[in-house]
């Protein structure tokens, strides 16, 4: 009797979870369905399934690829994200190691400056940063990598420092006594120990930079150097009537799919990284 009641209870939980999953997946499915419908039918009836009259196969995707410079924007985003994350992980882990191991007033002040930068919203420096970026000729794909390093340093130094404080300095000291220089010690001994934090820092920064819109829009504009979010915003922000909705739906799907694939493959690391980032941030 008892287990029967329990079974019924479990099934009602499943029912709630399945309905919720449907609600969570619906927006993506709607985009997917509309991406294979004729442009005319998308704005008109976005919630109907494609039928023999409205189905257009992959022609929207072909248009999406050829009409816009979507592929160029995709590779711009890949370039900027990969190199910014690499620069941030390498340079901020070195900085964090130094300011944790060399203890004086100066490194302490530096640590608090980095922590302080974490709470400053982008709008606060938006105008002056854009000005300096153009003055220093940093309005290019390599230039924006430096800007991401400057703006992303705070969180990354903070997270690396937190981890380095928890590892004993004896191992490093032994290496130095054995004749290893600090640079060798860092790359041979410290960096391998930092690997789990490095993965977390990479994921948090990659998610931020890949999805960032305002900074690349202000610095790189909507020309050849534009990133994926800027391309999507440029294509979709105009009046809906005179846009090729079919090609735009295909663009949205193509912008979402790489993220979902990345998520399904690295789910363990992403969830772990996001929890660590939440607890620290």
């Amino acid at each position: 009797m008892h287990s029967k009641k329990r079974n019924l209870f479990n099934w009602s939980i499943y029912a709630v979870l399945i309905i919720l999953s449907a609600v969570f997946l619906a927006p993506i499915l709607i985009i997917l369905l509309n991406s294979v419908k004729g442009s005319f039918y998308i704005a008109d009836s976005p919630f109907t399934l494609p039928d023999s009259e409205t189905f257009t196969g992959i022609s929207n995707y072909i248009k999406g690829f050829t009409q816009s410079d979507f592929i160029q924007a995709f590779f711009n985003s890949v370039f900027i994200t990969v190199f910014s994350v690499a620069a941030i992980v390498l340079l901020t882990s070195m900085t964090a190691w130094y300011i944790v191991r060399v203890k004086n007033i100066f490194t302490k002040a530096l640590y608090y400056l980095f922590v302080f930068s974490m709470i400053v919203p982008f709008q606060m420096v938006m105008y002056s940063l854009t000005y300096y970026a153009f003055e220093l000729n940093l309005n290019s794909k390599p230039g924006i990598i430096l800007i991401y390093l400057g703006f992303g340093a705070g969180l990354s130094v903070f997270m690396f420092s937190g981890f380095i404080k928890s590892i004993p300095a004896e191992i490093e000291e032994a290496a130095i006594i054995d004749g290893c220089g600090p640079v060798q010690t860092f790359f041979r001994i410290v960096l391998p120990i930092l690997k789990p934090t490095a993965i977390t820092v990479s994921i948090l920064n990659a998610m931020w930079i890949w999805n960032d819109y305002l900074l690349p829009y202000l610095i790189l504009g909507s020309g050849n150097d534009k990133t994926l979010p800027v391309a999507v915003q440029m294509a979709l922000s105009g009046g809906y009537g005179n846009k090729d909705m079919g090609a735009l739906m295909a663009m949205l799907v193509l912008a979402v799919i790489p993220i979902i694939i990345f998520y399904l493959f690295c789910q363990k690391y992403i969830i772990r990284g996001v929890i660590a980032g939440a607890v620290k941030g």
Partner: protein
Amino acid sequence: MHKTLKRYFPIFVLPTLSVFAVLFLVPFVMGVFLSFTHFKTVDSSEWVGLANYIRIFTTDKTFMNSLWLTVRFTVVSVISINVIAFSVALLLTRGLKGSNFFRTVFFMPNLIGGIVLGHIWSLIINGILAFFGVDITYDPSYGFWGLVVMMNWQLIGYMMIIYIAGIQNIPDDLSEAAAIDGASPAQTLFRITIPMVMPSVTICTFLTLTNSFKLFDQNLALNGKSADTALLALDIYKTFYDHTGLKLDQWHGEGQAKAVIFFLIVALIAFVQLRATGRREVEQ
């Protein structure tokens, strides 16, 4: 080691520090300075004292409107997201088969960028409203609730993950002892589960608070053209870069003054959070 390493400052710290100083510290100080000036470009600024601040609180109505809108949006989002996320976390920590699948599905929207997310919801919300012959700009409350629904869709999975971690950290003997003592499920929930996950509640409250308060991309993509539903971050952006219509008489510098107030509120939230979590995170 301290002494050997100390000489390596140029290799270990200087690259990060110089970029950080030039591209964060200098723009930050410049931003504070510019909020007290009237300027056309950064080099030709004229000191006007508090005039920008006075204008954003008196003549320019958009700031107070968007501040009030942001506060309402933040309160509604924080409550709805946390209540739903915690309830879902309770359902997913009962050891049911398939819990991992549901967790994967609920968390996924969190990874989709704000711009793409905003456009997906723009299509859906405008599609629904089309049945009634209107769109999202018809009534500011449509835009408001559109933002709330979208924010829920994006953040519920994220908060759920943190609550699941919190619930799983509760030692089993606590709930077992409660069950032996004959506690009802409701008693277990309110006397054991909720008090034990209070640290997660604090984290999630502040995460949703800052995320909602600083929202920009989603707002721009979903209803960026409507001035009635511009949250603070979008209003600041419009004050700087959108000089159409009535905005022509705005001073350069007003946007920066708004940004400073925005920063102070965000800093205050962060400070309260630091106190609430007992400074554990920073000092370790």
